[in-house]
């Protein structure tokens, strides 16, 4: 296979090598967080974490465990760099993203370390492409300080029903209001648009509701423009967990199955828009 014709000396210099038989297992999940140009990559023994942030209020993370890769070698405890995500996605889909079964792009992603570009070897149907993408010094991702002990309300829903609600959300509303409560309305998404308001209520006994752990009524508003990109992650996922903590910070965690049925995770953290008086 062409990718293995790299010289052994080259391979020794790389501090990170990650290979996939199907590049879509990486590109699809990265598309779910690609609302900004730049992404922070952080690789550890456990796998790859890719972070995208927006205006210090929103953070999206994609986790691709080491087990997903056909080959995963890391020579340091952590390897971090920043790249242009749009360019990376363009390279990963350089062969056109064909959906013909059996035909997929193989990927070998290599990194020499600080100051070196991220090198991608992509192969499909015997044709090999080499891409070198410049890397930057990684910024520190914001720590939203969201921990499970502070979680007040949590629900896990099957994505199917939430997908419908998100696709219908009134975009003329500046905010998306999320109400979680141990009593009615249980789990409610609200918008306040030009023609009036709308509410989507999910009862706690709905068969779409896999877990319902709400201890106290909370109503929080989040900027619609910040949450809209999460629809991409929702579209890929089969389950989503929605959690809010004592500060009203929102955590959305999406369970995504890739082409080979393996599980990856995407999560979004969002700050609340403002203090809301409960009505």
């Amino acid at each position: 296979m062409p990718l293995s014709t790299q010289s052994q000396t080259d391979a020794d210099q790389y501090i990170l090598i990650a290979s996939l038989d199907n590049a879509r297992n990486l590109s699809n999940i990265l598309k779910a967080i690609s609302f900004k140009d730049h992404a922070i990559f952080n690789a550890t023994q456990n796998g790859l974490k890719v972070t995208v942030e927006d205006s210090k209020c929103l953070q999206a993370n994609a986790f691709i465990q080491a087990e997903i890769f056909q080959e995963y070698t890391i020579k340091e405890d952590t390897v971090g760099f920043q790249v242009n995500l749009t360019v990376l996605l363009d390279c990963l889909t350089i062969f056109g993203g064909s959906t013909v079964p059996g035909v997929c792009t193989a990927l070998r992603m290599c990194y020499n370390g600080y100051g070196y570009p991220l090198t991608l070897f992509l192969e499909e149907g015997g044709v090999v492409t080499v891409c070198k993408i410049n890397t930057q010094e990684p910024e520190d991702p914001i720590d939203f300080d969201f921990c499970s002990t502070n979680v007040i309300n949590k629900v896990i829903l099957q994505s199917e029903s939430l997908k419908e609600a998100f696709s219908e959300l009134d975009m003329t509303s500046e905010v998306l209001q999320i109400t979680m409560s141990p009593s009615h309305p249980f789990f409610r998404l609200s918008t306040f648009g030009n023609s009036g308001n709308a509410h989507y209520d999910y009862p706690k006994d709905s068969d779409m509701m896999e877990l319902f752990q709400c201890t106290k009524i909370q109503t929080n508003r989040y900027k619609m423009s910040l949450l809209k990109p999460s629809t991409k992650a929702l579209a890929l996922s089969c389950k989503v967990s929605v959690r809010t903590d004592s500060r009203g910070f929102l955590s959305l965690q999406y369970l995504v199955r890739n082409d080979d049925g393996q599980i990856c995770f995407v999560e979004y953290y969002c700050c609340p828009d403002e203090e809301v008086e409960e009505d």
Partner: protein
Amino acid sequence: MDCVATGGNVKVLAKAIYSLSRIGEELYLEPVKEGLALRSVNSSRSAFASFLLSPLFFQRYQAPPDQSFRCKMRIKSVQAVFKSLSSLDRSVEKCRLHLNSEKNRLTITLHCKHGLLKTHNLSFQDCESLQAVFDKQSCGNILEAQPRLMVDTVLHFPPSLEEVNLSVSSDRVWLRNHVEEDSDSSRAMMTELCLNSEEFDQFTIKTQTSITFCLKELRGLLGFAESSCLPVTIYFDEPGSPDTEKPPDDFMSDDMDSFLIAMETSELPEPSHVATPPQAHPSNNRKHPASEDEEEEQEETLPEIPPNKKFCSLFFGSVLPFTSRLANQTIQEVLASDSDDDSETEAS
């Protein structure tokens, strides 16, 4: 007002709203004891559509105690409630329309599968009563066809085509696209379709004539008729007379819908029509005050060959006996404001 529609009727309601959105930008809602009237009119007041959903259409129907309630709202806001039209019958079990008169809100609640409840609170404005004037009994020409025939016929015309000409003889119907005289005839594409009288369920022609009307507005209604599998009946007379088109037959005697769509016809600027004495038009106008604003302006131009078209209204009316009483009542009504606020009608 409180109405509940269930099952497949929710989709019919959504399609009616969609069809009305092809006519105008506002949805006029008027719940009366005969049913819920949904209407729309275009900005030039030359096309009008009305759907009357009888109480039997609903699982529960409660008109407001004072019969004079009516309101209007942006039709796009109502359409937004019924997104994903194709899956509506699979996902929505029940739809409730409830008027909250204290808060001036119309609440539309959709009970969907998996327990999901969608509630939309829409603001509305008070408005005048929207009626149109017509008399289908006076129309000499009647064509009735399955919606499929009409849809297949208009398919041949580009979606952007505004006006179409319908000509009838004793045994044939021609449909042609209307081309402006001043447009470059070497570049214009003429499309002509000829239908034999046998293609129609009913073909009654008393006067061989030719009328031109706006196709765009008709398409919305044809779409509805096709999806509801209801035949369409066209009533018309000479240009200058109202032309009535009505789709439904009473197949569904329980769910009685009736349609009214008013559209305008224009007479062709041909010598034979110019010869029609101008006096005929004023008399027609008196019968049909609906279009009197436009008629009065154009009467003055009649002595010359009018470069512009002359417009009259044409309509859809229902055949259902139950609602034909209502249809007769509308003859006395005028397309004008009942209320003190006349600013709407004056705008036309």
